[in-house]
């Protein structure tokens, strides 16, 4: 098993290098000058020469790439051209939001999707099945931004004064205080990797609330996450539900299921141990693929719900020609994909021993 994981990790290295190179080239293919994008009307040739020298933009492209690669190996993602801040700082500040959103959206999509698919498959052609499939069909056909806005209309406008009211935008109710974890634990001077990690976790507000036992913060942060998570998670939910249903139906028609029933196993046992376990392989693939799709959804959702996450940051960086931020963010996201694919591969191996041995 360990060997399997090691082999997969090794094969990810050339992919990562390819992505680093591609992202570097892609960021530079975007026309427009970062100096003019930053200063606009105020840009003069002298100002731009100094600007380019400061960010190393006057060097030849190949040298820029080598400098970039060298810094990268030391964990330095560079400094944002527009904000003048290290990209790592921006990531520590903004990535947690997107991770938090992804976790909630994925949990929602997987739990609800698999349950709905299971019910549909077990009660085939019943009203529950037809209803689930109608919902799933609408789910994949509704644009993320329309769903997000409709959720806002329903929960923040129509249900405004009921117990179902949910905040329409933002991460916290204004005035809610977030105490960094390190401070709450009484170790505010912590620095180094552990300090950065705690800072990172502090910005995942619900995780912060759990680690510092802050009830009001948890309720506030979680209630702000519900609508965006539903908006991002609905398309994956629909796909997962359909996949679970068709996959389980196929497995339940297999000979070994009949054998299991013939042996007198209880139906619950047949479904859970023999049916679900075999039906889950394609579902795991779909779940993995949908995480990859979350960034597309995050760009739109973060715009609608006014959240400063990584999707929004990347979109603004592309529009503002902030090469360094584009490179850094895309790289981290790509790294995330490679890791997710690894997890998906490993879970295949766990679910199906034939893959591990083959």
């Amino acid at each position, binding site marked *: 098993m360990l060997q399997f994981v090691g082999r997969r990790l090794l094969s990810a290295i050339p992919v990562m290098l390819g992505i680093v190179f591609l992202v570097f080239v892609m960021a530079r293919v975007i026309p427009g000058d970062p100096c003019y994008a930053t200063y606009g009307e105020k840009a003069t040739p002298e100002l731009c020469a100094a600007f380019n020298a400061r960010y190393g933009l006057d060097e030849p492209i190949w040298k820029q790439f080598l400098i970039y690669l060298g810094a990268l190996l030391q964990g330095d993602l560079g400094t944002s051209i527009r904000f003048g801040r290290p990209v790592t700082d921006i990531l520590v500040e903004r990535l947690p939001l997107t991770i938090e959103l992804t976790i909630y959206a994925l949990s929602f999509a997987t739990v609800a999707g698999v349950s709905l698919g299971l019910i549909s498959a077990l009660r085939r052609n019943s009203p529950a099945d037809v209803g689930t499939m109608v919902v799933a069909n*609408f789910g994949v056909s509704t*644009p993320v931004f329309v769903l997000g806005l409709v959720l806002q209309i329903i929960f923040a406008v129509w249900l405004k004064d009921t117990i179902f009211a949910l905040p329409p935008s933002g991460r916290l109710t204004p005035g809610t205080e977030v105490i960094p974890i390190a401070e709450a634990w009484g170790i505010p001077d912590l620095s180094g990797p552990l300090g950065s990690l705690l800072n990172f976790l502090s910005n995942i507000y619900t995780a912060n609330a759990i680690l510092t036992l802050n009830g009001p913060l948890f309720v506030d942060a979680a209630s702000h996450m519900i609508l965006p998570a539903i908006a991002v998670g609905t398309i994956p939910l629909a796909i997962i539900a359909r996949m679970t249903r068709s996959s389980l139906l196929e497995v339940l028609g297999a000979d070994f299921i009949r054998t299991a029933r013939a042996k007198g196993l209880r139906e619950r046992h047949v479904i859970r141990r023999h049916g679900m376990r075999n039906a889950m392989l394609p579902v795991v693939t779909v779940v993995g693929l949908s995480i990859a799709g979350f960034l597309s959804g995050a*760009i739109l959702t973060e715009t609608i719900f006014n959240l400063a996450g990584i999707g929004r940051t990347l979109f603004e960086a592309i529009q503002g020609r902030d090469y360094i931020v584009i490179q850094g963010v895309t790289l981290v996201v790509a790294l995330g994909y490679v890791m997710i694919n690894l997890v998906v591969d490993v879970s295949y191996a766990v679910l199906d021993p034939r893959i591990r041995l083959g």
Partner: protein
Amino acid sequence: MDTLNAEEGLSPLPPTPEMADALVELDQPASLWRDTLRNIVRQRSAQFGLVFLGIFFAVAITAPWIAPFDPNIPVIDEPYNQDVNRQELKYLKPCIHILGCPEDQPQHIMGLDGNLRDEFSRVLYGARVSLWIGFVTVGFAIVIGTIIGAIAGYAGGRTDNILMRFMDVMLSFPSLLLAIVIVTVLGSGLINAQLAIGIVSIPVFARVMRASVLSIRETDYVTASRALGETGGGILFRRILPNALTPLIVQATLGIGGAILEVAALSFVGLGAQPPLAEWGSMIAADRKFLTTVPTLILFPGMAITLTVLAFNLLGDGIRDALDPRLNR
């Protein structure tokens, strides 16, 4: 042979009514396309999809006649209500006469938008834009994707490897992100947004085509036409392509829905259709700040997008099921 002889000795059973029906059907020459069409029409989801699509096509074609107002001109410029206050008309709530709206007010089924344009007319005209977006974008992706997939599958070896690895790299980026980069390179606008979504969709069609070509390439009839002296291009276009069409059609139908969704998303973030074009995504973007006061301006175009995409998805599912021989009952 023995079994055959033994069966000949048995007297045939009288045909049941069902068998008689089947025999009548067998009298007509079998046609792949007619059978397929019959199967498609039998699918419940395809029926829904076809009905919805029929309505959308009818709306798109007849928009100039059924739309009560011009989609791009503020109603205040129409001669009959010159004396109305501009500010009062802005974001006018829907006014439908049979639902109790006073008869002396002009009827606006979906209200007016921020620029005093009739929302209903804009939604109707939006059907034209969206259907055009769907077909042109996917058409572009199919042509390029099919050519790439066909070449990769037919040539094999290094050509195949290079082309398909390139497709893999494209697939490894989130599609909307890649599309945003492409639009940023090309500049905002509906055509460029379509081009971007078209480019992003190429790998899917290339893969489908390549897979078909790989399996058909090895069939006996391809070997036979090669033996008869058919050229490579002739084999590819006359023998392989017609037989690879079915998975492409399924993928295309589903792809049109996806393309409409993604171009609408690009328009929503301001990179696609530009005002004053009545495109559903950009209409929603323009009026989304007034979500709390006039939600109808978001709900109607949103519903239009969802129903159009739903129609294509249902039809695509229906065609796929109809073409899958394992599901034939």
